[in-house]
């Protein structure tokens, strides 16, 4: 092949590569537009599609948002939104703390674990919301009972996964801990808890969902206050705007709570992701 011919092929190749690069870039931009555009289009469709809605179930988005602002940002913020969030947070934190503590205890001392395992498995299998009527029957429906009910329902997933996680601790790490004479507290803090943490988090996210469901159910079931109670009340009095405003708020809260959880998890488990990635790279 002479030099000129080589040059032409190279030029042709260059052009081909260039046009391919251009096409790839155009495609990437199109996808990005689609990604951001679709939710905006969906919202716009909701806004304009419902503008003159006469349907009793689906009021216009404009009205829903006005109701949302009026209800949640002003009237009911202190009396209903805050108590719901506080109840939920306290109950969830109790569930996690007790679940992890109890789980570690059960994992490290086997007779109680073997003793409690069948019982735990059964209680976990009961749909958490079904326990609510029992609580109501036993203790009435004060605020403390509600927090207790949320916490107890959310306890089991985190408890069971903590047990599994702690029992699965790498034996060699435990031998290392013994050789270096780590105190029981140090073993807990530096070996068992971190070793179990990936499992603990996977249980805790289930607990989070359960706590959210039980919180709303408990409010819908029989309460004068709380976001769930107001939303249910609006539904029962055919106040579609109020109901939609409630759904919107609950949806946003559900999303935010999950977001917060994911942020904490990514922070605490950054070592785990790194270790997993380096393992799969090998």
């Amino acid at each position, binding site marked *: 092949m002479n030099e000129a011919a080589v040059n032409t092929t190279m030029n042709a190749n260059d052009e081909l590569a260039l046009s391919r690069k251009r096409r790839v870039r155009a495609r990437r931009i199109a996808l990005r537009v689609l990604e951001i555009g679709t939710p905006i289009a969906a919202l716009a469709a909701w806004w304009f599609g419902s503008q003159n809605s006469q349907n009793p179930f689906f009021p216009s988005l404009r009205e829903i948002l006005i109701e949302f602002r009026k209800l949640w940002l002003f009237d009911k913020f202190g009396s209903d939104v805050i108590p719901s969030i506080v109840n939920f947070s306290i109950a969830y934190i109790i569930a996690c703390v007790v679940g992890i503590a109890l789980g570690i205890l059960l994992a490290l001392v086997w007779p109680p674990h073997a003793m409690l395992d069948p019982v735990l498995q059964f209680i976990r299998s009961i749909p958490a919301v079904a326990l609510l009527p029992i609580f109501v029957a036993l203790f009435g429906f004060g605020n403390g009972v509600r927090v207790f009910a949320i916490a107890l329902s959310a306890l089991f997933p985190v408890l069971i996964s903590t047990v599994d996680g702690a029992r699965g601790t*790498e034996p*060699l*790490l435990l*031998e*290392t801990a*013994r*050789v*270096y*004479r*780590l*105190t029981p507290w*140090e073993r807990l803090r*530096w*070996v068992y808890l*971190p*070793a179990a*943490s990936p499992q603990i988090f996977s249980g805790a996210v289930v607990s989070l969902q359960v706590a959210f469901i039980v919180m709303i159910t408990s409010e819908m079931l029989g309460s004068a206050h709380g976001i769930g109670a107001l939303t249910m009340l609006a539904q029962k009095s055919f106040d579609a705007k109020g109901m939609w405003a409630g759904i919107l708020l609950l949806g946003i809260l559900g999303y935010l709570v999950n977001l917060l959880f994911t942020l904490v998890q990514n922070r605490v488990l950054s*070592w*785990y992701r*790194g*270790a997993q990635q*380096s*393992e799969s790279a090998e």
Partner: protein
Amino acid sequence: MADSQLIIDHLSKSYATRTGSVQVIADLTFDVKAGEVVSIVGPSGIGKTTLLKCPTGLQPMTSGSAKINGREIEGPPPEMALVFQEYTRSLMPWLNVEKNVRLPLRHMHLPKDEAEQRIHSALDSVGMHNASEKYPWQLSGGMQQRVAIARALAFRPDVLIMDEPFASVDAQTRFELEDLCLQIRDSLGMTIVIVTHDIDEAVYLSNRVVVLGQKPAIVTSILDIDLPVPRDQITTRSRADFAQTRTSILELIKNGKQ
């Protein structure tokens, strides 16, 4: 045996299994003097790892005794550290290098300066002072094993026990780590016991080599290695007496199998 730092006396070990008791170690007797490097070699599958679990106090022995500095060993003694073969599983993946090395020092309640100094010099002596912020899974195998050694060094044991410490690293790293061992012994005056299946390594490192045989394990012979010090990977290994010692150990192991 008056000046012996570690004394293993008629140690035996059996495990209870469903079909009855299985004896892994029949009778071990040897001693290690302060500042010595002693290697334990033997045919594969003879339970060399089990052998270490008794004198380190990780598992109870069935009969016999083990003493360190004249004291009976019951649990893991404070003047002993252990480096495992499986470095990937003996470092805490959730702690960075510095915190891994610090972990055994926490309950000693050392003055802050001394703790820092110990960690620093330990990491320094294994050449890992630049990686103290890294996590174990960001390091190569050889580097992880260096961290495990640094952790043992910062603990300042009298006796450092190593269970096939270099079995899973590449040959180049292996030579470096072997020299690191000798250097530690010289600079810190540590007594080192190494279990290995690599006879060259045993000869190169040791003052004495304990050869195991049969199953269940017994000590078939104990050899003094009179190679000159300091040792060097090239000159020491190319000596005629190195090859002779190596051959005689190989033969001892081969005979021990039958």
